[in-house]
């Protein structure tokens, strides 16, 4: 069953003093997200990701097209109780404490008072804010606000969760926590649709991704397939400049930085290079896979748009 169907959603803005100039925000596109999927909505800044999410949340109105969420019209108010939403760079009522804020949102989502009393402390514990439950949000850091944002998005136990740039502005620890949270949501059976321009996050979390650029959907791909197609390369780092000629002799170029040497090696030549750097006069430091076709897929799609425009 499709959790989300976007059916030709389109957004055109009128700009200028007389509102006669048209600016395309989103070209009509179709997209289907299956229930239980983690779907990455990729695109560079200004691609139209937030516009799409705002259209789906009913915050702005489309010029044309429609959408269905969990099989129902996206404008149906009843569907809003079954979806969760985290806006980009969320800002909440800073005069409230997280407990008060979640209680307010819970009431609006139709969660009973008894359920709110049970769920709110548990949720705050889960996002690591239990100690700050009675502190006003105006004293919170950006990372803490993001956690509050995630808590409010799942408080009413929605079936589909929409997250707009959930990792933006977070430090590495915060990003890892949000990743784990998204994975946990998915394990609970929820569909997660999240926008990002950070490919590593999409690669780590998503079943499928789509690329949006300049308001145009450029492609949809299955992450596992894209990674399978990868032209595998590895970064090999070692110490010992004496073996450089041997490595270069098999067609691999080396980059020297102080005492260490780095070479990017095709999978076919990896074993030969490793045999050399594991031998005398060298010490192997590390071997890491590089690149990955998700990045290639993204860059290719973004470049296509640029070419079409030229």
């Amino acid at each position: 069953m499709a959790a989300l169907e976007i059916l030709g959603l389109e957004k055109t803005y009128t700009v200028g003093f007389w509102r006669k100039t048209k600016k395309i925000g989103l070209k009509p596109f179709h997209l289907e997200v299956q229930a239980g999927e983690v779907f990455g909505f990729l695109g560079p800044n200004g691609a139209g990701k937030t516009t799409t999410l705002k259209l789906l949340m009913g915050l702005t109105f489309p010029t044309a097209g429609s959408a269905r969420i969990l099989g129902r019209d996206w404008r149906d108010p009843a569907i809003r109780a079954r979806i969760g939403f985290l806006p980009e760079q969320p800002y909440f009522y800073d005069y409230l404490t997280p407990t008060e804020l979640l209680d307010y949102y819970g009431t609006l989502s139709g969660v009973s008072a008894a359920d709110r009393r049970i769920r709110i402390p548990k949720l705050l514990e889960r996002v690591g804010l239990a100690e700050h439950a009675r502190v006003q949000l105006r004293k919170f850091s950006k990372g803490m606000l993001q956690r509050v944002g995630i808590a409010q998005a799942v408080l009413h136990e929605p079936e589909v969760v929409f997250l707009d740039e959930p990792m933006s502005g977070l430090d590495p620890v915060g990003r890892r926590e949000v990743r784990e949270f998204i994975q946990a949501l998915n394990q609970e059976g929820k569909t997660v649709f999240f926008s990002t321009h950070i490919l590593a996050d999409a690669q780590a979390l998503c079943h499928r991704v789509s690329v949006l650029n300049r308001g145009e959907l450029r492609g949809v791909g299955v992450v596992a397939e894209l990674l399978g197609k990868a032209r595998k390369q590895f970064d090999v780092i070692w110490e010992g400049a004496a073996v450089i000629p041997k490595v270069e002799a098999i067609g691999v170029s080396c980059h020297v930085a102080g005492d260490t040497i780095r070479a990017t090696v095709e999978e076919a030549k990896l074993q030969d290079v490793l045999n050399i750097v594991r031998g005398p006069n060298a010490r192997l430091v590390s071997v890491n896979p590089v690149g990955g076709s998700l990045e290639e897929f993204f860059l290719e799609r973004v470049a296509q748009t640029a070419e079409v425009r030229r």
Partner: protein
Amino acid sequence: MTRRVGAVAFNTFREAVRDRVLYNLILFALLLVACAPLISEISVGVQRVLLINLSLTAISIFGTVISIFVGISLVSKEIERKTLYPVLARPVGRGEFIVGKYFGLAGTLAVNTLAMTVGFYLVLFLIMRNVTAADTNVLIAVYFLLLQFLVVIGLALLFSSFSSPLLSALFTLALFVAGSFAQDLRGFAGSAHGVARWFSWSASYIVPNVDRLNVITRVAHDEKISAALVGYNTVYALLYSCVAVSGAMLIFSRRNLK
């Protein structure tokens, strides 16, 4: 629906309280304390008149200023700060949001006005050493002031649903001032001719007739306020507010949020 409107209203009330909107009560108290020695110097007959005029005018000014300046930010602040997004992404209609905001500020003003009224009666008792049955007439003037606030909040919400806070404040204030001369406009319409007559007659019915809601001087002089006027003003203020809030709901329901 009632629960959602109630939740938005309660949150609006809580915001006003935590943003120290009710601190105006301190100003009101200071005003009465500062004027008390002056009032006690005046002859006994005038003391009461002066105190009623002073207190009710202060209630009117404080309440109107709060109605306009908090009213215009009810929607615009939520849009500007994007606090509205997680609210409207829930099963909350835009109309419900507007109505909740309206009742939230109306509740704040009711509490504010009640506190000031209690303060007024306290000072009246301290100066006059008794409160007579005639003094309860003041409650009708206070009730009319509350009706006036309901109308002004409705207008502030209406304007803030489509324009900037600055313009909303200007429009609301302009209509309020024009409404203070609504009776004069009607009088002028009666004596004018042609377009001027039509224009002033129309304007007198479009602007809120807050002139009719002001009975401060009359109650200060123990003039009886008829039940008919109470009924008329109640129906008028509620209808006017309903129209303004409905307009705000209609406009806001079609607005694209940035």
